[in-house]
């Protein structure tokens, strides 16, 4: 594990500078993810692994800390001067990686860029009307209406240097129509704890430490070398053979092997993403022997399907004791969650059969089940197990597992009967995300992920109230109430929260984060 190994990942060029950097970099962290970061431009995509990586280079006005609480970042404080006018005081003395000072102009340009008509991330800052510079270190964000969670949104909106964008003709995000490449896609200039040194897409992206970072570093890294490795087997092989220090994700079935090996261990922690089954609740099923009625419209049938799934068995056998079964649609850290409601009765096939018989489907029926095959942890295996469990109560699920892009195309096109979806509530980190996207009757920017067209007037009314309620306690109580209604009506079948599963070489310390975004500015190498 000498110099050669350290330099292994392809670094183009200047062998000498690389050598020096590598030699000085006693604390190089070599990491691999299953897919490459999509681009260096934080306003060009919304992939969570890319955003997680870019958090090391770029920063927002606020950020989530390790406990997923909003804390000051480039803004030091904020206040609502009016219900729709949020004033930020900006941090003094911050510089971008190219040496330019950070000022209000940068914030204005960046927020306008993110919210621009052609920006793919504009729905991540939905309530912004405009942004105004007050003075060099003060900025006003004007909202279209009261928005209790605007700060949560802002954790995800990175700030770029205005001068740099102007110089490089990158003031607007990449526009797909132009067919033109945006300078910011391959280059970067942020304020974050690490600086982009080189990037070869699909091969390696190298960051070096930012000595002039405004925050007190709690890490001792000097260099991060990122490689994407799609094949699980190859990624684990590289960790076990000492070519890597940190991999994510580590497949659950290999955790044992990693922990038994010399020199590597797994990091397992509960994560935010709740896996669930949405259901077609329109007049007809798409893939069934029944053509005249949709049994899923009957609450008793939905409950029967839920009761028939033995989540305890799935947790034990497929998730290897690492998942957290859930009776609610959100994970514990999400505001609105209530432990008292999160009680999952044990699976009961007899009860399920009785419910089916009561609903008039004692002989069972056929129903389509759609699953992605590589989007969530062991997604395909879970669906296969569910197929087998449902067959015991007479429900024949016609399972179709496809690539994520095909799966979501079919699901969102409304062609599914029962479909698997995972929801982390990010970037909002709030139950409102579930209410507005998954449970609200579709239409008017609501219910975008409710292709089964579940509709409940009571829930819709509550959702509208939650959207504008600024009193945190009242708001949380309303969201809890909404989760209870959804649970009692079995609007969607919740399965579990999948775990975060990483693995590191011994001596590497990385705090786990429930949003599955490593925060390497807290990482140390012994």
């Amino acid at each position, binding site marked *: 594990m000498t110099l050669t190994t350290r330099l292994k990942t392809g670094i183009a060029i200047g062998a000498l500078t690389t050598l020096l950097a590598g030699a000085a970099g006693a604390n190089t962290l070599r990491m691999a993810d299953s897919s490459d970061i*999509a681009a260096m431009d934080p306003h060009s995509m*919304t992939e969570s692994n890319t955003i997680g990586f870019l958090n090391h280079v770029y920063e927002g006005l606020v950020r989530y800390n390790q406990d997923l609480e909003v804390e000051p970042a480039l803004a030091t404080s904020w206040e609502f001067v009016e219900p729709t006018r949020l004033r930020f005081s900006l941090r003094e003395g911050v510089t971008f990686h190219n040496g330019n000072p950070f000022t209000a102009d940068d914030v204005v340009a960046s927020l306008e860029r993110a919210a621009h008509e052609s920006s*793919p991330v504009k729905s991540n800052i*939905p309530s912004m009307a405009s942004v105004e510079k007050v003075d060099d270190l003060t900025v006003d964000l004007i909202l279209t209406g009261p928005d209790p969670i605007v700060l949560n949104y802002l954790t995800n909106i990175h700030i770029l240097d205005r001068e740099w964008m102007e110089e490089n003709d990158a003031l607007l995000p990449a526009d797909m129509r132009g067919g033109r*490449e945006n300078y910011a*896609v391959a280059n970067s200039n942020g304020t974050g704890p690490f600086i982009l040194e080189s990037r070869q897409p*699909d091969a390696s992206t190298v960051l070096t430490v930012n000595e002039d970072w405004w925050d007190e570093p709690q890490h001792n890294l000097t260099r991060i070398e990122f490689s994407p490795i799609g094949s699980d087997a*190859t990624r684990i092989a590289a960790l076990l053979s000492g*070519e890597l220090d940190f991999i994510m994700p580590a497949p659950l079935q290999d955790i044992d092997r990693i922990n038994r090996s010399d020199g590597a261990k797994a990091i397992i922690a509960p994560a935010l993403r709740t896996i669930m089954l949405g259901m077609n609740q329109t007049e007809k099923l798409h893939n069934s022997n029944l053509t005249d009625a949709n049994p899923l419209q009957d609450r008793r049938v939905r409950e029967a399907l839920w009761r028939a799934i033995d989540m305890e068995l799935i947790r034990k056998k497929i998730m290897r004791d690492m998942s957290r079964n859930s009776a609610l649609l959100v994970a514990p850290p999400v505001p609105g969650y209530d432990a008292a409601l999160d009680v999952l009765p044990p699976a009961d096939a007899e009860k399920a059969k009785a419910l089916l018989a009561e609903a008039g489907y004692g002989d069972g029926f056929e129903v389509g089940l759609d699953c992605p095959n590589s989007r969530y942890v062991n997604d395909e295996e879970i669906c296969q197990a569910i197929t087998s469990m449902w067959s015991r109560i007479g429900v024949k699920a016609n399972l179709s597992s496809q*690539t994520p892009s095909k799966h979501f195309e079919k699901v969102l096109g409304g062609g599914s009967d029962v479909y698997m979806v995972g929801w982390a509530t990010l970037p909002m980190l709030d139950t409102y995300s579930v209410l507005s996207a998954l449970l609200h009757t579709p239409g008017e920017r609501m219910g975008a992920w409710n292709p089964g067209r579940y509709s409940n007037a009571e829930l819709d009314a509550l959702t509208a109230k939650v959207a504008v309620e600024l009193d945190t306690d009242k708001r949380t109580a309303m969201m809890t109430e909404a989760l209870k209604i959804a649970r009692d009506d079995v609007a969607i079948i919740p399965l579990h929260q999948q775990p975060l599963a990483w693995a590191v070489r011994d001596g590497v310390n990385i705090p786990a984060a429930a949003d599955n975004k490593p925060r390497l500015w807290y990482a140390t190498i012994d």
Partner: protein
Amino acid sequence: MIAYVLRRLMQSVLVMLAVALIAFSMFRFIGDPVNSMLPENASVEDRQVLREQLGLDQPVTTQFAKFVTGAVQGEFGVSYRNKRAVSEMIAERLPATLELVLAAAVFALLLGVPMGIYAALHPKGFLANTLNVASLIGISVPTFVTGILLILIFSVWLNWLPSFGRGQTVDIGWWSTGFLTVSGLKSLILPAVMLGLFQVTLIMRLVRAEMMEVLRSDFVRFARARGLSNRAVHFGHALGNTLMPVITIVGLQLGSMIAFAIITETVFQWPGMGLLFIQAVSFADIPVMSAYLVLVALVFVAINMIVDLLYFAIDPRLSVRA
């Protein structure tokens, strides 16, 4: 002569058009990229707007016409996933794939030719039989199994060779090469072996068959009659006559190795065009996929055309048929 060349060119153009149509129509069914490009909370309206931006709402014929016009100029648009010009991304990855294919071809020749010669000279020997069976095992094991085994043995157990990537590369102009550094060469070994193994059998059998045929020819008999040593006959006369068709076939195989590199690159995370293609497939990144297919087809058509024209130039008898 000119007429033949022109006709051959026309044919190639037609083939390319057919490929473009196939590539294009295939990708219309891979999946809708819009869902993977927008955040989870994007609205139905946002999706529709993006679809219009990408031209996905236009009639298929319009989309195809646009595709072909662009392709002719080397323009394949911008990758949905990486937001970069596809032509540039392909150019970046071309060296990795070509170096891998080259190394694999050299490996296959270095192993296959001597094995073939031996098998031809000692057709009944025990070693020849063993080589024969061994080479058959080489083509009977699926390449993806071979690759994983190589990693398991040489990276995880023995810790000799890296399991992924290209190692350190050096840029010569726009070409990035892994041939000039130790880590680059070490990284090349396992992938090249995996990709080359399949070809070893082919080459060995070809060399054996050609050589046995040449050895029976009058020309070799005369050489023996002149009292030349076995060694001189085998290596001076027979081998020389054997190698020409072998090199032709290996040339033709290069194209298929580029295609098989998809699997090798997936297993070894080799940053070449095949990996780009497979990643594009899972993201439904249509511009990248179509560019890859058209490019591979172009390489094939070009190689085939060159071979045909060469044969035509060498062997005037073919002009009768043409």
